[in-house]
Structure formats: structure tokens, C-alpha cells
């Protein structure tokens, strides 16, 4: 019962994030909304797994927590720099010495 209430709360929060992703004022708002949606989706997967009595779903939650991060970085890098191949950070040898 308590888990079901938690699920409902998370679903409402996810719906709000979708609204922000659709209406977002700039693309950064959309990227933020998707990242936040992803974190809530991880929590929802964990709670659903417990509700249905199948803890095997936790693997999916773990993997999506990682994939969400990668997608956010890729989207941010694309939108800000329009490049996927150039490095975001210089390697320690090339920076001016305060890396």
C-alpha cells in the first residue's frame, strides 16, 4: 500500500518532467528534464520490482542509472559544442598545469 503510494507519486513527478521536456524554454531545460525523468524512472523500476516481488528488476534499474548519465552527457555535448569527437577536457599533460 505504501509502495503503491510511492509509485503514484513518482508517476506524477515523471509526468511533470515530460511536460517540461515538451514545453522547455531552451534545449537545456529539455536535457535537464530527461535526466531527471531518468532518475525517477530508476526509482520507479526499483519500487515496482519490490511491489511485484521480483528483485531481478534491480539489474535494469542499475543499468539505466548508468545509461541515463551517458545520454545526458552526449546530449549536452552535442547541443553545446555540435561535436561528438573532440574531447571535453584536455588530458592532464596538455592543460596549463592547474588541472
Amino acid at each position, binding site marked *: 500500500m505504501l509502495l503503491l503510494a510511492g509509485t503514484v507519486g513518482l508517476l506524477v513527478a515523471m509526468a511533470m518532467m515530460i511536460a517540461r521536456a515538451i514545453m522547455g524554454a531552451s*534545449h537545456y531545460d529539455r536535457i535537464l528534464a530527461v535526466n531527471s525523468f531518468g532518475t525517477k524512472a530508476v526509482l520507479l523500476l526499483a519500487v515496482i520490482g519490490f511491489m511485484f516481488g521480483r528483485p*531481478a528488476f534491480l539489474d535494469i534499474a542499475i543499468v539505466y542509472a548508468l545509461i541515463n548519465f551517458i545520454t545526458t552527457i552526449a546530449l549536452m555535448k552535442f547541443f553545446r559544442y555540435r561535436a561528438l569527437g573532440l574531447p571535453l577536457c*584536455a*588530458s592532464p599533460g596538455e592543460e596549463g598545469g592547474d588541472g
Partner: protein
Amino acid sequence: MITLPASINASLVLDIVLLVMLLVVAGAIVRTRSLLAAIILFGVYSMISAIWLVVMDAPDVAFTEAVVGAGISTIVLLGAILLTRGETEKSDWRKLIAPALICAAVGGVLIYAAMGLPDLGDASSPANAHVGRAYLEGTAKDIGVPNMVTAVLASYRGLDTLGETAVIFAAGIGVALMLGFGPRSSLASPPSNLGDRHVTLRVAAKLLIPLIALFALYVQFHGDLGAGGGFQAGVIMAAAITLHALVFGLRETMAAIPSRVARSVASLGVLIYAGVGVVCMINGGGFLDYDYLFPPAVEAQIPGWILGDGSHAPHWGQHAGILLIEIGVLLTVTATMVTVFYGFAGRTVDDARREAKR
């Protein structure tokens, strides 16, 4: 009462809410004109689909949908629209009447057909009564692997999976032929890094990349027991390599995993898979019949304590065969995804260099 005994109401509520969200996101994807917004919403769509698949009790499929749809697919689509314009053209609504009518007609026919399908989980439907039941009853006897999806995928229908692996390999070759194997100009000149100093990102990426790779190996080897397997593990490993390329630059990643190595590893995976089949044939069985993987003399030498409790026949051939072909699938999927990423990202590096020279 904390945990519900899988009551119908919870799944129904979840199903309806998730499907409504899917509908809203799909409508937004169609209506938006900016392609970047469409790609972002595609990621959201894939994730909602993955959650819905979890609610329907299909964790293997949900796994694949989550990693492929919301992860690699988004990154490859980004690479694709870097090579094109960022917006779609506005289309006249009059041109859309005929396609809309066709879609409505086809959709109506599909909905009518779907009403005649058996109920979900009906034990007497043809899908569940004949072949499905044979697999359910035969897995423990013939193969001895707890995860039945892996048993069907890797052993009962191993030939189909070999075809799928070959198709993935062919797709990688196709992309590489069209887009090239990486940046054309040599990478000897130092790359221009992009300005802002992302120190926390660099540190966090250094921590995360090996953890993601380790988790990919866990998914690979745990696929016999829980949700997972070769395809999912391959995509997760490719995601780790992609993260490295995103944060540290394509040059560093290609120094670690050259394009040559990626191509060779992809073909090695298919070779391992087909090789297992041929070894089974040499030992007297059919193609990919794992019971004949080890000759009987070798099989008698394997000590009983390695696997299982000895209360049932150990099926060494099945276990070893499934392990080997899953490794083949992992190698091919990882290397193909890396090749595709190199193709797209290499093109953008070339474009950036050309812009800088201008």
C-alpha cells in the same frame, strides 16, 4: 500490507498511466520541428516503453529496450543529425490527408485484429500450449539453465541467434562502408579541446567507465540466471567506450581501441559462434547441438563439483556451449557499436577540422 500480492489493479493502473504517457510523448515527437527535441523525446519514449515491459513481466526485453533505445540509439541519432540540418521542414496539411487516411485504415484493421487475440497469459492459446509448453517443460531436463529466455535464445533457437549476430555484424560493415572507419585525416595533430573546464566530469568519468565495463561483464555472465545475456552486455560495454570517447576525445579512444581492432573483434565474435556449431558437427552431432560439444571421453573427466549439486545430469555441453556463444555475441555487438560510433564521430571530427581550416 507493504507488498501487494501482484494484484491486477496495480498493473492495470500502471499500464494505463504508462500508455497515456507514451501517447502524449509520441504526439509531441510528431509535432515538434526541432530534431534535437525529437531525439530527446525519443529517449523518453524508449524509457517509458522499458518500464511498461517491466510491468508486463518481461525483464530481458525491458533490459534491451532500456540500453539500446535510451542509450546507444540516442547517441547514434545525434551523430546522424550532426551531419544534416537541425530542423524539419514545415509541411502543408493538405499533403497529409491521404497518408493520414491510409494510417487510420491500417490502424483500424490492426485494432480489429487485436480484438481476436487470446488473452494475455492464456494457457490454452496456441503460442503457450504447444511449443511454449514444450520449452517450459523441457528446459530443466535438456539444458539445465534457470533463465528460460536464455535457454530458448541460445540453445533451442541457437541458429536464429546466429543469424541475428550475423545481421548485426553486416549492419556494422554497412555503416563503416558508408561513413568510413574513423577520421580520415590523421590524428597526429593535437585536438582542440572545447574550452570549458569540466573537471568534475573528467573525474567522475574516470570512476564510472571501469564500473560500467564491469557491470557489462556481470550482465553477460549472469544472463544464465537472471535477466541479461550477450546482447545487453555488448551494448553496455559499447556505452562505456562511448562515454570515454565523449569525455576524453575520439583520439584517446582510438588510441586505446583502434578501428582495426574493432573490426577484427566483430568478426571474431561471429567466428566463435559459428565455430562452436562446427565443433559440434565434427564431434558427431548437428550444427549447434551442444550435447556433442565435448567428446564423451573429455566429458567423463570433468569433476562433478564444478557445477550443480549432482542431483541431475550436469549438461556440461549445454552450459559450455551457451557460455561460448554468449561471448561471441558480446564481442560482435560491442565491436559493431564501437565501429558505428567511430564512423559517425569521425565524420564530425573531419567536418570540424575543415571548418577550422577555413
